[in-house]
């Protein structure tokens, strides 16, 4: 056979093959066509390569090794609101003779509490530039409260031996974003629920088990310092209304009129979320204009919480702090949180934390909002501080001394890293 005949037949064959490849996609939809996946593989790879180019260029530009990037224990604080978590740990570390370097993604001025002596402070840029710096530091151990190491722009530095995450609130994995804890070497857990959650996610994703420490929540110690007993008994119990902001917040869902009806039975302190002023100014103004209630806009909620007998809210963060620090009950409007895309998708079911706390953080369905005063009355009447402290001891590790515990655990990790380096 001549070469031209062979070429011609090969071309016919190729045509058939391509037709057949298309046919295979119809033949067995479960299997698909290998050719289709080859083509789509090339297309997706190109898309990913181009899409990731920007991040890789930024990363490359800032891949400069600075002299001040070398330290033994690096502590990274992304936002001023997490300082309260690190301060007790920093103090306890210094007491142990450890001299950490405290990297903040903001400037610290005189209004901040002074850092303990022997803590070196370095302010780095916020956002991607700061992470590009952080991604190249050199340390035996890096501790942070920022989740998603090696997922978004916060990447592992090849020169950091161990990464640990410390928790800044009582929580569970179901409400965190994907891969929140997956690529840390260790997690200093707030309580048993998150510990179990992390183990389950490791099993689901087939990840190696990381070190999970029973630590607790260091910032509760700082909150305990600002806790005060309720002052002189008022004629009516004090209800602190402190909801979240945004489209699913209590004020957005139910308006502000319920405040006036609540004020008939209770003394009401309203603490609108600071973000409302920026994002929902009209609603914020309506809250401020509410009659018969006290509006609290102080920088911290400590004073309002100290005065309140009961908290009415719609989110978890402040509710746990109020219940566990002040040992007083909470009523939450139970607007179902959808775990769309969050780790709760993998865990399934409902919040274990909500279930375990429902005796003193009482969920009330939204349709019961017209009867909220009655629910608050019932909650106050049935509240048992003893029961609350019992549950607290089950849910939170080392309540009131987590800073010291965390410092001990970090010192152990650090010592191990040093000894490993020495052995090498």
């Amino acid at each position, binding site marked *: *056979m001549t070469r031209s005949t062979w070429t011609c037949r090969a071309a016919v064959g190729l045509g058939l093959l391509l*037709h057949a490849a298309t*046919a295979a996609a*119809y*033949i*067995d939809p479960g299997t698909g066509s*290998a050719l289709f996946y080859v083509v789509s593989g090339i297309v997706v790879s190109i898309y990913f390569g181009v899409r990731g180019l920007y991040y890789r260029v930024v990363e490359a530009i800032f891949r400069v090794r600075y002299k001040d990037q070398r330290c033994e224990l690096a502590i990274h604080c992304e936002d001023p609101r997490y300082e309260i978590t690190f301060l007790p740990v920093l103090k306890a570390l210094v007491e142990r003779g450890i001299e950490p370097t405290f990297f903040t993604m903001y400037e610290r001025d005189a209004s901040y509490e002074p850092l303990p002596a022997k803590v070196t402070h370095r302010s780095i840029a916020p956002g991607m530039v700061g992470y590009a710096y952080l991604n190249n530091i050199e340390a035996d151990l890096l501790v942070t409260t920022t989740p998603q190491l090696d*997922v978004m722009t916060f990447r592992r530095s090849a020169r950091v031996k161990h990464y640990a995450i410390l928790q800044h609130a009582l929580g569970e994995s179901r409400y965190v974003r994907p891969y929140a804890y997956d690529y840390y070497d260790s997690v200093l857990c707030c309580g048993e629920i998150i510990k179990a959650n992390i183990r389950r996610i490791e099993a689901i994703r087939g990840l190696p088990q990381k070190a999970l420490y029973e630590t607790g929540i260091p910032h509760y110690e700082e909150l305990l310092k600002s806790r005060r007993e309720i002052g002189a008994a008022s004629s009516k119990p004090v209800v602190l209304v402190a909801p979240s902001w945004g489209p699913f917040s209590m004020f957005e869902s139910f308006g502000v009129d319920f405040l006036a009806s609540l004020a008939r039975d209770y003394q009401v302190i309203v603490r609108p979320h600071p973000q409302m002023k920026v994002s929902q100014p009209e609603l914020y103004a309506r809250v401020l204009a509410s009659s018969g209630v006290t509006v609290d806009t102080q920088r911290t909620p400590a004073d309002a919480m100290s005065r309140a007998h009961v908290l009415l809210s719609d989110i978890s963060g402040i509710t746990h702090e109020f219940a566990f620090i002040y040992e007083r009950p909470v009523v939450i409007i139970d607007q179902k949180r959808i775990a769309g*895309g969050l780790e709760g998708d993998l865990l399934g079911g409902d919040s274990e934390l909500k279930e375990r706390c429902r005796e003193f953080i009482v969920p009330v369905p939204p349709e019961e909002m017209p009867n909220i005063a009655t629910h608050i009355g019932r909650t106050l009447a049935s509240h048992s501080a003893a029961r609350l402290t019992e549950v607290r001891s089950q849910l939170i590790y080392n309540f009131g001394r987590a800073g010291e515990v965390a410092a001990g655990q970090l010192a152990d990790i650090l010592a191990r890293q040093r000894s490993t380096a020495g052995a090498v």
Partner: protein
Amino acid sequence: MLDALEHVFVDPLMLIYAFIYHFPERWILDAGVQLILFSVMLNLLLMPLYRQMEQRSAATREIRQRVASEVARMKRHFRGRERYFYIRAVYRNYKYHPISELLGSADLLVQIVVFFTVFHYLSGLDAVAGQSFGPIADLSRPDGLLGGVHLLPLLMTAINAASTYYYVDDPSKRWQAWALAAVFLVLLYGSPAALVLYWTTNNLFSLIRNILARRMRSGSSTPQFPTFARFTAQR
């Protein structure tokens, strides 16, 4: 250059095909039977390789499905930068990269090579020139058994249609596959009877083997043959 490549890669296969084709000659002198045996023996020899490839592609398919499901979840809930990074994390979690589809397609390459080289071998097979097989007067020419109408391509298409009926449950996809079988009928209608006889036997072998395999693995809907073997079953 092309000659060198042909000598290195194609010629050894031609020798193997020639051995398989001519091996039964001492007992059988009928070219048509030889072609049928050639098809069956080649399929039997390739069966372990195809089985291994199928197992590997089944594992890849499972990972691909999991990745696709996770990527779809991320796309459903996240946008822009977050979506990009989460999809990257999904790939990392499953040790998957879209480019791995290329590396994992080595089995497809094997199937393409077999297809081309067999086509090449049979196209140049002088031994069938002027040879009859049953009612087929000359295997090197289209059969023209039905008063000038070629029977073998119709038979091949009938087997394709049966394969489609057997493999595909979705009615719309079944009709599409039947339409494609009709296209192949048009394309191969005028081919030499030897070539069509080989492919028809090949298709029949695949169909019977898959029916048996499915019966043995009751409850399983995954055909045993690798993707390209199913391509040929459609031809």
